[in-house]
């Protein structure tokens, strides 16, 4: 137990930012948010040597992997980070969404927007079907069940006809024009904006949920599931909700992805996707949505930025993961609850 | 002096569980620490065994500072603990559990038969059960096994954490009888107990612990007749 601690200067982004944020006025906060969001929307135009990647088109990188990773990571964060359910089969929801749009779009000519909603719905349905039995298990047993689920979806996709089997499906329709924005195969920017919008919507919903009763219930379950149950929290119901909501985000992401790449094969949906997204969540800082989004963007970005290393980039990437975890085991921007100030009579939060 | 603890402080995160304790155990003594749940008794024993690190203070064993010695090596120094809740390895047989007591000694097979014989004389019950899995023993038998296992390491100081916990009155009597017998064989004992009456009556000296502080010390018999202690720990008196 002789712990030799390397003393590092306490660099805590979240504390620094949190202090500053609490000192701001309402108007300042609105301006900050607008500027930040605007920055992300114009990001594809900032293809300069600093941001840009050497060998791939920066706008494509922004859509995939960065945008996709961020969207899926904040979806998975509801499951793993917020409620502590270890899900190793997240790719299943992604695949369900992608195939929903591919099949309904190609064979039945359904509109992309309808398919996004349907993809989310099917993913949620799958989440309920798997979650109802599986969420009774805990820890590693749950992990292997979800892993199995991810593999089953992929194997089924290979072996049945309506998914096009191992050859997959091609000619998946792009989204129709949206208020003058055209979704063209050779222009990834509209797809990036679409993913960005979905991510912002997800973050909005997440913030709302976590500030209220469901957020408290999830946190309580993560901290001590038994006690949560004793405090009247329907733990199974809330775990299922987390699982299903995370699944819905994955399904939506899948539909968007399919519409951009125009052809999909089952091999795109292997375990590595689940692992990668989980890595984004843990790497960024499990349970802290800003950390998760940042971590996912970074994990999407680095392999592309490292393209000059060509073939060896994944090698360095693996090494980076080991080193990062050893230095900051709780992620880059760890979840750290800040103390609050409440009004003693109403219990309402007061800003300092 | 066998064990000397000076100004010891131990914290769990921000919570200070032990707030500056000094105590000693002389050779051949039974010393008991009495106090309610959460008073810091177990924390103190864990710190002496090295499982917890103190934030301040000194622990000397046989006039040697043992802070730098890793917890697993403290057994070799002559300190062994029968932990709270007995800590039986449930999947090992009684015999294997006893043998674990000699784990720290590279020459553990030497004198093994002799040591086992000693334990079986002290606890005939264990001999009957020697091939039974530890997890299937009754609470009393497990406590005997836990003490026996610690004694297998031939300690000079035996640390006992709540040996009477969860035991029937008959067994409690027996355990305390055994504790006296162990003392008579020359092993010193630091005993942590909630069962104040029994502990005080068999101890040479005692310390009363309350929320991380020693509030009283003295000969066991004297404290046993102390009204305040009767009131706090026996619920009788006053």
């Amino acid at each position, binding site marked *: 137990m002789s712990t030799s601690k390397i003393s590092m200067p306490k660099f805590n982004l979240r504390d620094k930012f949190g202090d500053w944020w609490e000192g701001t006025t309402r108007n300042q906060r609105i301006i900050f948010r607008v500027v930040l969001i605007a920055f992300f929307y114009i990001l594809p135009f900032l293809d300069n040597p600093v941001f840009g990647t050497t060998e791939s088109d920066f706008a494509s990188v922004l859509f995939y992997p960065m945008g996709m990773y961020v969207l899926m990571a904040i979806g998975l964060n509801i499951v*793993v980070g917020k409620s502590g359910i270890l899900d190793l089969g997240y790719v299943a929801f992604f695949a369900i969404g992608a195939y929903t749009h591919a099949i309904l779009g190609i064979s039945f000519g359904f509109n992309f927007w309808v398919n996004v909603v349907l993809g989310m719905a099917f993913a949620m349905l799958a989440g309920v079907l798997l979650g109802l039995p599986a969420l009774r298990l805990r820890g590693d047993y749950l992990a292997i*069940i979800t892993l*199995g689920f991810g*593999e089953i979806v992929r194997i089924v996709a290979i072996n049945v006809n309506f998914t096009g089997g191992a050859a997959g499906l091609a000619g998946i329709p792009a989204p129709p024009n949206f208020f003058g924005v055209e979704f063209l195969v050779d222009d990834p920017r509209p797809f990036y904006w679409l993913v960005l919008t979905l991510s912002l919507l997800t973050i909005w919903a997440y913030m709302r949920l976590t500030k209220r009763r469901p957020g408290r219930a999830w946190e309580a379950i993560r901290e001590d599931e038994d006690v949560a149950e004793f405090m009247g929290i329907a733990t199974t119901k809330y775990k299922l909700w987390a699982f299903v909501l995370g699944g819905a985000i994955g399904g939506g992401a899948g539909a968007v992805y399919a519409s951009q790449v125009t052809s999909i094969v089952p091999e795109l949906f292997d375990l590595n996707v689940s692992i990668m997204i989980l890595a984004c969540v*843990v790497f960024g800082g499990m349970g802290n949505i800003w950390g998760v989004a940042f971590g996912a963007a970074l994990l999407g970005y680095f392999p592309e930025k490292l393209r000059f290393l060509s073939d060896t980039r994944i090698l360095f990437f693996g090494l980076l993961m080991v080193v990062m*975890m050893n230095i900051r085991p709780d992620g880059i921007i760890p979840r750290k609850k800040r103390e609050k100030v409440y009004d003693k009579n109403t219990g309402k939060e007061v800003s300092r | 002096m066998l064990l000397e603890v000076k100004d010891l402080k131990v914290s769990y995160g921000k919570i200070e569980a032990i707030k500056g304790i000094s105590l000693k155990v002389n050779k051949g003594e039974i010393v008991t620490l009495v106090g309610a749940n959460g008073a810091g008794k177990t924390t103190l024993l864990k710190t002496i065994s090295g499982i917890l690190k103190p934030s301040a203070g000194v622990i000397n064993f046989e006039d040697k500072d043992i802070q730098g010695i890793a917890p*697993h090596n403290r*057994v070799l120094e002559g300190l062994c603990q029968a932990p709270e809740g007995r800590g039986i*390895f449930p999947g090992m047989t009684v015999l294997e559990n006893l043998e674990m007591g000699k784990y720290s000694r590279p020459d553990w097979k030497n004198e093994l038969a002799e040591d086992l014989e000693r334990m079986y004389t002290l606890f005939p019950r264990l001999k009957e059960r020697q091939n039974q899995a530890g997890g299937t023993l009754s609470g009393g038998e497990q406590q005997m096994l836990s003490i026996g296992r610690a004694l297998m390491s031939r300690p000079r100081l035996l640390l006992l954490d709540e040996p009477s916990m969860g035991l029937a009155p008959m067994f409690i009597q027996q355990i305390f009888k055994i504790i006296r017998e162990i003392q008579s064989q020359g092993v010193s004992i630091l005993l942590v107990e909630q069962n104040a009456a029994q502990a005080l009556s068999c101890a040479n000296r005692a310390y009363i612990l309350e929320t991380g502080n020693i509030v009283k010390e003295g000969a066991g018999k004297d404290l046993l007749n102390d009204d305040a202690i009767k009131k706090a720990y026996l619920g009788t008196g006053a």
Partner: protein
Amino acid sequence: MDFSIVVSEFASLVLDGIVVGAIYALVALGYTLVYGVLRLINFAHSEIFMLGTFACLGVTMLLGYTGFEEPIGIGLFLLTFILITVVAAVASGSAAMLLEVVAYRRLRRKGANRLSSLISAIGASFFLVELFRLLTDSKDWDFPRLLDKNSLFEVSSAYFTADKLVVLIGAFGLMFALDRIIKGTRLGRGIRAVSQDEKTAVLMGVDVDKVIAFTFLLGGVLAGVASAFYMLFYEATKFNVGFLLGISAFTAAVLGGIGNIRGALAGSFALGLIQQFSSAILGYNWRDVVTFLILVLVLLFKPTGLFGEALQRARV
């Protein structure tokens, strides 16, 4: 679906199921041993196995086998194969120990989140896979046929070939040896003690760091030997060979009740048989689906696996 094959090929399916199960078992033991002492899925264990297969291949190349020669005589084969096995065991064993130091030790001492250790292991796994993908040019690599694979004798429809016999005898011998090590040696006892009650183990003088390092070594050696058997039986490897075999072995460990040695063995043989029969009935493509469905069913009715211990049951 074809059920008649189950009847006509019953003995053959059972034999192959046991052979495959024996290979799974050696790898599954590594997962379960590490889980026992660390309560952690050693995600990179499959890569330790993969590394072993290439070590085997390396030895045959150094010995000058090209794969086009006739199978060698039994005496020379045994010598060669023992050499291959030892080298693979040493390579995998030392890699596993190195893995523990690099990916786990610091995190464990910090008392880090289990997930952080998992991600660290995933990183190590990525590194190893990529390293071997680059070194081996992403190609399939064939292992030379060292042994005549004609049937020696047959029971019903089961053909006993020399390679199957080597795998069976070797694997069972190794399992017996492991049992002796765990029960009879000092460090083996340490592994059992740490698995059952780490805190008390320390009080009894068990050096947990040493025991954990030894556990990784044991798991690595078993995976190394398994890789030699695998190469003898399947005669090919690729950089991603660990992934597929690792999932099966891990599933087997969970099926039996992870952390439990007996469970890992039972789970492995059960899984080997399930896979053979489901491939025969539904086709190889559906094999893994059936595997996972059975796993789900087992866990639903027995949430700690077939031999899962009630010891870790949560208490209030």
